[in-house]
């Protein structure tokens, strides 16, 4: 029992890092422009498929492919912002929710037509590490490592570079930032692009250890909502910690309850936290 507990704990923790990256993307977008990006899931799925296509057609190592995925994710984010989000940025929530959802429908619609919904997987293994009683798949370790690097890079970008500071300024008070000469439209597009980039990278990482279809993103989108609420909406680093909490919960719940109860507990927790502390467990905004 203790060995099993330890194994599922580490498994969950490593997965939690990846959940965290996905949620960071969602949280960043909400924090900067108060838009809930409902196209988050399909973008995660696109990240999976891009990694898959590069791996099988170009033969590139998946971790190098993820660099390409990140670039494409950023550009795709600019595109979505320009086409669908910019016009409704100041409209009531319903408009931005529906605008991003329409992007979701378009991606899923086109994706289903092109890739069908049969499951794919990337046949790539780095072997595994044996530490005491615990066996770790190296792909998951790599994913966790990438995540930590990304979080650190995002932190440095937001706090140390001029564009990062501009993003924070716009998040804080858009009108004031504009008066200081910050081009808010570009900054918002950049923030949206970074958010979709994180989602795409998370998708790429997940594709190295789980099979996926074009619809798989939906699950991770919902998990991202739960995580964002755990960590506080609009707090990207809180999202990473929220991801770890969710990962650990997912590792531990199956030890005590049937696996099918995992989502019940997750979403019940989600609603309860929203009710008691809408700013999130770690939210100190």
């Amino acid at each position, binding site marked *: 029992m203790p060995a099993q507990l330890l194994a599922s704990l580490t498994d969950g923790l490593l997965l939690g890092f990846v959940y965290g990256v996905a949620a960071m993307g969602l949280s960043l977008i*909400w924090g900067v422009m*108060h838009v*809930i990006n409902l196209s988050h899931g399909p973008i995660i799925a696109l990240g999976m498929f891009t990694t898959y296509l590069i791996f099988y057609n170009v033969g590139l190592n998946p971790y190098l492919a993820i660099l390409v995925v990140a670039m494409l994710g950023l550009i795709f984010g600019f595109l979505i912002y320009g*086409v*669908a989000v910019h*016009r*409704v940025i100041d*409209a*009531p*929530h*319903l*408009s931005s*929710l*529906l*605008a991003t*959802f*329409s*992007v*979701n*429908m*378009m991606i*899923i*619609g*086109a994706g*289903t*037509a092109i890739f069908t919904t049969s499951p794919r997987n990337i046949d790539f293994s780095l072997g595994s590490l044996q530490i005491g009683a615990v066996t770790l798949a190296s792909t998951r370790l790599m994913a966790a490592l990438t995540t930590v690097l990304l979080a650190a890079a995002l932190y440095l970008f937001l706090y140390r570079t001029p564009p990062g500071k501009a993003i924070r300024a716009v998040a804080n008070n858009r009108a004031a930032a504009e008066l200081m000469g910050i081009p808010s439209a570009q900054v918002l597009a950049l923030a949206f692009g970074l958010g979709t980039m994180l989602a795409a990278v998370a998708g790429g990482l997940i594709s190295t250890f789980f099979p996926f279809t074009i619809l798989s993103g939906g699950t991770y989108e*919902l998990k991202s*909502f*739960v995580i964002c*609420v755990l960590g506080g*909406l609009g707090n990207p680093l809180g999202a990473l910690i929220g991801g770890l909490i969710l990962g650990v919960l997912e590792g531990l719940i199956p030890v005590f309850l*049937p696996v*099918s*109860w995992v*989502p*019940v507990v*997750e*979403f*019940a927790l*989600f*609603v309860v936290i*929203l*009710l008691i502390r*809408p700013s999130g467990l770690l939210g100190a905004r």
Partner: protein
Amino acid sequence: MNAWRQPGLWLTFLIVLAGGLGALLTRNDTLRETMFTTLMFVALASSLNILLGYTGYVSFGHIVFFGLGGYTGFYLLSQRGWPVYMAALAGGLLSALLAGLLGLAIFRLRGAYFALATIGINEAARAFVNNFPPFGGPTGLFVNFAVYKQYGGAAQALWITFTLLWASTLAVLLLSFLIKHSRFGLGLMAIREDEDAAMVMGVKAPAAKTMAFVLSAFFPGVIGTLFFFKNGNVEPGDAFRLHMSIETLVMVMLGGQGTVLGPVVGAVTYERLRSYLLTSSFFKNLHLAFSGLALLLIVLFVPAGVVGWLRTHFARLRGVLE
């Protein structure tokens, strides 16, 4: 009340009356199936409009009431042998009760937080039903053929279900109209414009919002029971499709939120568009992408919906289109 003399009510009523009568008089099975889907969309969209259009709260969880109410009704009629109208009523009442309890809690949240909470409720409900043995778990429930005897056979049962749905749809529209023209409705619309100001002016916002939620949740429960009875089975995937919540939102947006006629126009248009896209050989594979594109264009360029647009651009129509 002079509501009965309003052309807006009669116009809306006539559209729905004619649709239902057409199917009932011709006794055409294909027409009935099409009308069933259309009327179901109309009723779902109109009931969502009571919350979304009048109070401005975006709920992604409308389908929870369709699912849970439908499950309850279906359980009562298939496992306990209740007649369908009693089961549908019970399904509706359960949904309303649930909405009342949920409403007391989640209406402390506003805006996007409320929307997120409703997504969570939808997923939690689906996951719960998946694990709830009396409702058959992941495989769901089926109708035993013996149940059809009390209706005089399966074919007759379908026509009874259709008539009940038709009546429920008319009831939703009447309710929607009455709310819009009542003091209560004015309070809701004040909340939509500015909740804090409304509360200062004496609108009891928490109670009013919860009441709107309860009223909007009752009908999905009734309709869910009828829909699953017509299908002969119910399973969690069908009952809690987040997608269907959003389709309902699209219908309300398309027709015009906050109007009585809007959801009817939106639901009928959406249903026609969807079945065209699904059956045409060119669009078949891409129908979802095209629906998405249509939605985006509406949100970006006609946010008030068809009826809202007509009302702003043609002053004369304002007396006729509610």
